[in-house]
């Protein structure tokens, strides 16, 4: 007894995951669950970011801005190590320019 597949189209296809469930009658029924939100990743090295919770708007909307991402330049976008490397490179370049301009 496989029930007709859903008629809801995109609202199911994009957001739902199908789980096969055995039914007392012996058939299979599909249960639809929300997809889990993926974790925030560093834009440069792909490492998962700390201090960046993820979730549906119902949860994230309640969080204040500082609860959603670290209070640092590029917070929630770059991991601390990548930020340090980029800032270091920029500072060295600035140092060289200052030396050259003397």
């Amino acid at each position, binding site marked *: 007894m496989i029930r007709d597949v859903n008629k809801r189209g995109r609202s199911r296809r994009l957001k739902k995951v199908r789980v096969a469930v055995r039914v007392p009658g012996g058939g299979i029924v599909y249960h639809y669950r929300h997809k889990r939100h993926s974790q925030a990743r560093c834009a440069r090295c792909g490492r998962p970011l700390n201090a960046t919770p993820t979730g549906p708007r119902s949860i994230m909307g309640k969080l204040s801005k500082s609860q959603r991402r670290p*209070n*640092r*330049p590029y917070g929630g976008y770059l991991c*601390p190590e990548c*930020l*340090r490397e980029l*800032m*270091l490179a*920029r*500072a*060295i370049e*600035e*140092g060289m320019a*200052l*030396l050259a*301009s*003397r």
Partner: protein
Amino acid sequence: MGVIEVGRVCRKIAGREAGRICVVVRVIDDNFVEITGPKDLTGVRRRRVNVKHLVPLPIKLDIPEGASDEEVLNALKETDLYPKLLEEKEKRERRKGKPA
């Protein structure tokens, strides 16, 4: 690139104030120094910080150890970096709408 010592102008490369200019006012030990922005110029308050978070620039101010923010500010005014600092500050304030 210059060595970390009293009067050394540095860029902070980590933490909340990453990317901002600060000046070393006191060396605590070979890992920690005391820096100041000064706060109303670069948004870096007087605080103890690990040298790993700093990158020295080739500019050194002639200030006594433990100098006050005013002394640091006046010394900074002479350097050719000062106009750039004002520009950075103005940009920050324009973006944040309030003194950053």
